[in-house]
């Protein structure tokens, strides 16, 4: 029997249709502009798909819900046809719930034995939950926000229901994915800044490798990252006279660990001659290092669900830093599962000319030990700049 926590952020996604880039702190404004709730409907859709599968497969579904009262989960479960004996309301929010209630409900669920926290919302909700549960419990999002840069979301409510079914069947492992969020206050002032807040665990299909004729071995995401790191050690080892700049993310963190340095998970670090020469470096530090070490290589990994390698969660890697390193000295790494979710890699460097140079350029992305996959870069910046939404 598995216990799944369910938290719906009933106001998530309301800002989008009325021209707000999120709902954090501006619920009243959204309602005033005529916004209607969308998240409860999406959560119900997912819960109904799951309940219908339960009706078909019956005994395979050993599932117990823990949820929050009212529109934070209870109402959606009832609307989707789950019976009262199948869930327990473990937290009662006030009539008008807020992010504090998401966190509080999460905390109660953490105190109980919860195998998965399923939520309905956007990046803000993902962040609230992540900041409460960390990596102790996998989390999975039904997409309903205005912004969904984080890697914890299923593609749509029906696909989320399929992931939950496989999770209940014990067929899934889990992987670390980024929690990203736009700084909404800065954004509404006209500044676009997507921050990397951390890495959460999410249910994840293992990578299958053919071991024999009709035989398959599965490889966890962590094992895949070890393979990438192993290969990068070989590659970097052949460039010992260069400065190695390592971007954020768990793939790069694994490379750092294998190099024997204390790599930050969320920051950009630099290594020279096998030694860590800058930890969590800012743009200025990086430019200083590049003055001293003209030969450099920059190792990156896509951040978040849309496959951004530059411009999301690693703004320290400014256009000046990238130009100094040189486009031919960029190595991109990514697990095959991450690449499978994004057909192209994206950049948004903030420098139109640099974006143009990168746009359409193809990279052999390192996806495993001695394994590469060709991926093209798409520059995302120009469109949004035309709307005047950038600094």
């Amino acid at each position, binding site marked *: 029997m598995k216990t799944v926590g369910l938290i719906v952020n009933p106001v998530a996604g309301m800002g989008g249709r009325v021209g707000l880039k999120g709902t954090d702190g501006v619920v009243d404004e959204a309602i005033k502009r005529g916004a209607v709730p969308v998240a409860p409907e999406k959560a119900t859709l997912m819960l109904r798909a799951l309940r219908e599968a339960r009706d078909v497969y019956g005994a395979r579904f050993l599932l117990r819900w823990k949820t929050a009262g009212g529109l934070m989960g209870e109402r959606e479960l009832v609307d989707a046809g789950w019976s009262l004996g199948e869930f327990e309301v473990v937290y009662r929010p006030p009539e008008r719930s807020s992010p504090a209630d998401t966190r509080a409900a999460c905390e109660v669920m953490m105190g109980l034995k919860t195998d998965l926290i399923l939520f309905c919302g956007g990046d803000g909700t993902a962040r609230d939950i992540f900041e409460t549960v960390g990596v102790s419990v996998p989390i999975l999002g039904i997409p309903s926000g205005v912004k969904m840069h984080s890697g914890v979301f299923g593609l749509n409510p029906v696909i989320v229901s399929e992931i939950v079914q496989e999770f209940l069947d014990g067929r899934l492992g889990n992987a670390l994915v980024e929690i990203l969020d736009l700084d909404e206050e800065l954004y509404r002032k006209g500044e676009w800044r997507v921050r990397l807040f951390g890495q959460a665990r999410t249910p994840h299909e293992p990578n299958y490798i053919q071991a024999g004729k*009709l035989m*398959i071995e599965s490889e966890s995401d962590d094992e895949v990252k070890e393979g990438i790191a192993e290969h990068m050690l070989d590659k970097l080892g052949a460039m010992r006279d260069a400065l190695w700049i390592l971007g954020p993310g768990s793939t790069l963190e694994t490379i750092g660990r294998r190099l024997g340095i204390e790599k930050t998970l969320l920051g950009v670090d630099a290594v020279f001659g096998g030694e860590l020469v800058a930890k969590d470096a800012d743009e200025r530090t990086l430019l200083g290092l590049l003055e001293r070490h003209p030969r450099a290589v920059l190792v990156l990994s896509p951040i978040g669900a849309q496959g951004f390698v530059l411009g999301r969660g690693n703004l320290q890697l400014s256009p000046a830093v990238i130009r100094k390193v040189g486009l031919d000295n960029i190595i991109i790494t990514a697990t095959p599962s991450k690449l499978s979710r994004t057909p192209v890699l994206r950049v948004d460097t903030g420098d139109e000319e640099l974006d143009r140079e990168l746009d359409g350029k193809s990279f052999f992305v390192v996806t495993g030990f001695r394994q590469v996959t060709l991926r093209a870069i798409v520059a995302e910046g120009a469109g949004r700049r035309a709307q005047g939404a950038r600094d």
Partner: protein
Amino acid sequence: MQRDATGFLKAEYEDLVKKNFDWRIRVLQGPSSPRCKVDGKDVLMLCSNNYLNLSNHPKLIEASIKAARSHGAGSGSVRPIAGNMDLHIELEKKIAKFKRTEAALYYQTGFAANAGLIPQLVGEGDLILTDELNHGSIIDGVRLTKAERAIYPHVNMEKMEEALKNADKYRRILIITDGVFSMDGDTAPMDQIVRIADKYGAMTWVDDAHGEGVLGEGRGIGAHFHVEGKITVEMGTFSKAFGVVGGLVAGSNDLRNFALNKSRTWLLSGSAPPATAAACMAALDVVENEPEHNKRLWDNTNYFKKALKQMGYDIGNSTTPITPAMCGESAKAQALSVGLFEDGVFAFPIVFPMVARDKSRIRTMMNAGLTRADCDQALAAFEKHGRKLKIL
């Protein structure tokens, strides 16, 4: 420290059993013939690779017996030292003539050819482009090299060429593909692969295990696409349509000289027994001189495919005697296989994760020795159980 030396054996086996990934091997009692006995039951064989039924051909059997009498049961050594028999050399000349290449080398198995030669052709600083559905022995051969490998989407020539366009930094490039893909029965467009490879100075390697004896009037995928002698390495096997065992590599004289000096599998395992080498030669003679086997194989294939399709089975993109009957989810393919076996038809289910979750199937392999009545019996069982399981 007290170390448990062998506990993993049981633990890992039990894990396979739990996941339903373990092999429960059936026992063939007697020859691999179109009608044979499996686990005590008389069945129609629809999952052997013995496409032309040559394993039962009197000429092959006679040649084996004769060679055993004249040359003994074994070769006594590895080829490079003292196990290089006149029969091996004669066989290689015949292979080259059959493949219309300058030269050929006979390996102990197809696996030995893939695992032995691929890692010698490329190394550090090189790139391998490999089709995502390539056979496991290619995957293992590739794993043994220090070259970087890029997997291209199944027979996607555009993606393959895109990789070549961006591969200036690599020293050598090797494109590797199955000729006939064993799960779907479709083929690699060798004419296009050769043309594109030539444009970028890349080598080509085709594993024609399921094409020899079948395509190009039996000569294989090179003949089928009119690129004989233009593929860098035509690799194949005698264990399928040729009805014996052993691997082969056909290509230039330079390739043969290189391969026999560098393939560790070839250099370090004992050479094939005389009976095997002689049977392989007989198989080549039969394929060249008795076209009726190939014709019957295709007649049966076309009849069987058409009937399955008319029944309502999705048979994918197969253009060869490998015909998948799509079942949808894994449980259905497994149930269909059980039902077929009960009705005397031996056909193998292929399920997730070998193929996508919704693409589980029964993979049938046609045999020239099956009669029309045999095919009808098999088809009737497919129809009966297909309807019962609501696949149709």
